[in-house]
């Protein structure tokens, strides 16, 4: 612990700043430009450095940690290739509004621009994928820049911020000065919602006969689940959630409609298409949610609350924008609601009829394994209480359909960018942040291979991550589109001939592993895996190879027209 006024070199200032930001973990990988930092790190005891095996892994771990805890994730990588390897992870965090602070080493100031060894213009490269980024050119600006970086990452709409630190800056001495406060004149996010707009929203809600909440990740990051639960239940308004919004409202509550959109529930999409009032909270009308915009919620008066004004009227024109923090919006709305209530039982009955018309269900065969069964079983055995991490693809959509998320910060998944390889490292990051709930990863075989090197990190740190590998030896979602929309030309999606034996791979990493290929063995394996807490465990679920995720809205279609099953792809309801 150092004090203001102490003479410190850049690398000491770096750790002192992290200390003051209450950083617990750094996900990092050393290299030439960072040697001074790692030298200083040798004597730092109150911040834990987690050694990853690839810088992309570090960014996903930081994101998993951030999403599970609500605190910013911190990454430390060297210049050049170390920095460029973070690009996918930073983009992922940008698309899903996750607070990250990424520190990159840089070649000495005097060499910048000279094509020096391991030089990359990472500030230039990451400008469009960060909320903001900085190159620190003078050690006297290091502390204030780090302070700003954390402030920007966590305030307003969260996002990744990058700080590039040249080697000489880290090795130069100056007087340490921690700024008491931060003032960035170009960054004044609107937190408090406009009172008149909220009043108007309250009046619209009070008189709506067929209202619907459509909530997204903004409710989770604003920590507004309790407010949402209160108003939805008080007013008897059903709630549908985006992929990132799952858990914002308890999935086992009768008013929960599950997810909407491309692989959302039939009843949620019907409700969107038939509601008279749509209250969007912390969501951004993404194309996977809206389908064809011209036919999206055409009967509804639309209220849209979001902290980022650019989200308003971007994809869908709304009637009542309310810019501000979602917690403030919902809390103020609860206060503003009139005492009288409309009877909405007819609307809820109608939704119930849609639910019965096309429920989410699956069949159980004794000799083959369906992914739906695996996820449903994990959901039951963990009582919807796990932190669930997914990779990207079919298993991700099945997770959104069959895992009953009961609390916020329970799903960690790559939504906006759809990054294969996200799952394993982000599950590891989540396991560092959360120790009182099981951390469960559902990953496909394609995605697991993309960052499988991080299994080392899980084993070495004895993290009790449950790696549930949904192995159909296909790039299943691509295969599904090939079957449905691309004349069954299955080019380069069949991995059966090339996949390794995942049980042996895991064991070679020192990870406990088993496999299951029918419901009976799967159930037992899940129980055993959930009970094992000495380190990571991998279960290789050999699932039916050619299953497809339904229901489905074909790309660009209206969400009221869903494909319900493979057998009758021409029949839409």
């Amino acid at each position, binding site marked *: 612990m150092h004090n203001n006024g102490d003479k410190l070199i850049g690398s000491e200032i770096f750790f002192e700043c992290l200390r003051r930001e209450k950083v617990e973990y750094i996900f990092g990988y050393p290299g030439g430009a960072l040697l001074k930092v790692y030298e200083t790190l040798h004597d730092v005891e109150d911040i834990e450095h987690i050694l990853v095996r690839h810088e992309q892994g570090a960014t996903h771990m930081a994101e998993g940690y951030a999403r599970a805890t609500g605190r910013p994730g911190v990454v430390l990588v060297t210049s050049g290739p170390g920095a460029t390897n973070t690009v996918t992870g930073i983009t992922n965090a940008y698309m899903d509004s996750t607070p990250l602070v990424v520190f990159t080493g840089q070649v000495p100031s005097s060499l910048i621009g000279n094509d020096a060894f391991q030089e990359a213009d990472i500030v230039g490269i990451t*400008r*469009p994928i960060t909320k903001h980024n900085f190159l620190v050119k003078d050690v006297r600006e290091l502390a204030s820049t780090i302070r700003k970086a954390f402030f920007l990452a966590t305030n307003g709409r969260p996002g990744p911020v990058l700080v590039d630190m040249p080697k000489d800056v880290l090795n130069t001495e100056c007087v340490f000065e921690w700024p008491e406060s931060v003032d960035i004149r170009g960054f004044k996010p609107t937190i408090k919602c406009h009172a008149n707009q909220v009043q108007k929203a309250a009046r619209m809600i009070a008189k709506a006969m067929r209202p619907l909440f459509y909530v997204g990740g903004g409710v989770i990051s604003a920590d507004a689940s309790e407010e949402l639960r209160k108003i939805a239940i008080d007013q008897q308004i059903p709630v549908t959630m985006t992929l990132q919004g799952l858990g914002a409202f308890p999935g086992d509550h009768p008013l929960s409609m599950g997810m909407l959109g491309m692989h959302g529930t039939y009843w949620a999409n019907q409700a969107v298409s038939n509601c008279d009032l749509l209250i969007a909270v912390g969501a951004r009308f993404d194309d996977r949610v809206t389908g064809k915009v011209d036919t999206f919620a055409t009967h509804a008066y639309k209220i849209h609350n979001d902290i980022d004004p*650019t989200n*308003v*009227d*971007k994809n869908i024109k709304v009637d009542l924008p309310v810019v501000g923090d979602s917690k403030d919006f919902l809390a103020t709305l609860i206060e503003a609601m009139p005492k009288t209530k409309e009877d909405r039982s007819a609307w809820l009955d109608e939704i119930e009829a849609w639910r019965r018309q096309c429920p989410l269900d699956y069949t159980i065969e004794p000799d083959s394994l369906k992914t739906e069964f695996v996820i449903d079983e994990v959901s039951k055995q963990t009582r919807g209480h796990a932190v669930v991490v997914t990779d990207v693809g079919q298993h991700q959509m099945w997770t959104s359909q069959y895992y009953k998320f009961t609390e916020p910060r329970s799903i960690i998944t790559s939504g906006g960018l759809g990054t294969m390889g996200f799952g394993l490292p982000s599950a590891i990051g989540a396991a560092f942040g959360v120790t009182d709930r099981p951390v469960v990863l559902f990953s496909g075989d394609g995605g697991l291979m993309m960052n499988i090197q991080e299994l080392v990190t899980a084993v070495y740190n004895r993290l009790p991550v449950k790696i549930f590998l949904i192995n159909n030896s296909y790039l299943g979602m691509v295969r599904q589109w090939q079957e449905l929309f691309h004349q069954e030309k299955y080019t380069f999606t069949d991995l059966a001939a090339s996949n390794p034996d995942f049980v042996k791979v895991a064991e070679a990493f020192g990870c406990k592993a088993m496999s299951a290929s029918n419901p009976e063995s799967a159930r037992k394996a899940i129980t055993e895996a959930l009970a094992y807490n000495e380190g990571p465990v991998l279960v290789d679920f050999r699932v039916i190879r050619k299953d497809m995720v339904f229901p489905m809205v074909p790309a660009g279609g209206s969400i009221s027209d869903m494909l319900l099953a493979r057998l009758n792809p021409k029949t839409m309801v």
Partner: protein
Amino acid sequence: MKHLISVLVENKFGTLNRVAAMFSARGFNLESISIGETEDPEISRMTIVTRGEDRIISQVLKQLNRLIDTIKVTDLTHQPHVERELLLLSLKLNKSTQHEIFELANVFKGKVVDIKQKSITIEFVGSPDKINTAIDLFRPFGIRELARSGAVAIHRGES
């Protein structure tokens, strides 16, 4: 329609790049952009000319505001403002055209900034429309080269 946007930004390296890159990344039209220091050396003023329907322009303004290095974003289009552009126009010169060129330059209040035996460079200041007209009218004389500054603009004072 055409919009004229004035943006106060932090006078830091990379700011112009952030703004220009945002336009290209989001597919917004960028007709011209000019930038220079203001009375406060820490702040620069950017003048941007763009085109689009109202819905697009509203996104442009919000996306500009969202950049951390932008301090104030104003759409001057429907507000009283003065808009000027500088044109440096280099023309071929010979005995037969000399007279006409001078006369026309006078009409546009042009100022001769360089003259050689076979070429003349004239400076014009005016609204972009006037600059366009000047270029059109001088074209028959043979344009050697031209350089335009892009528009700069400012609010008119209050009475």
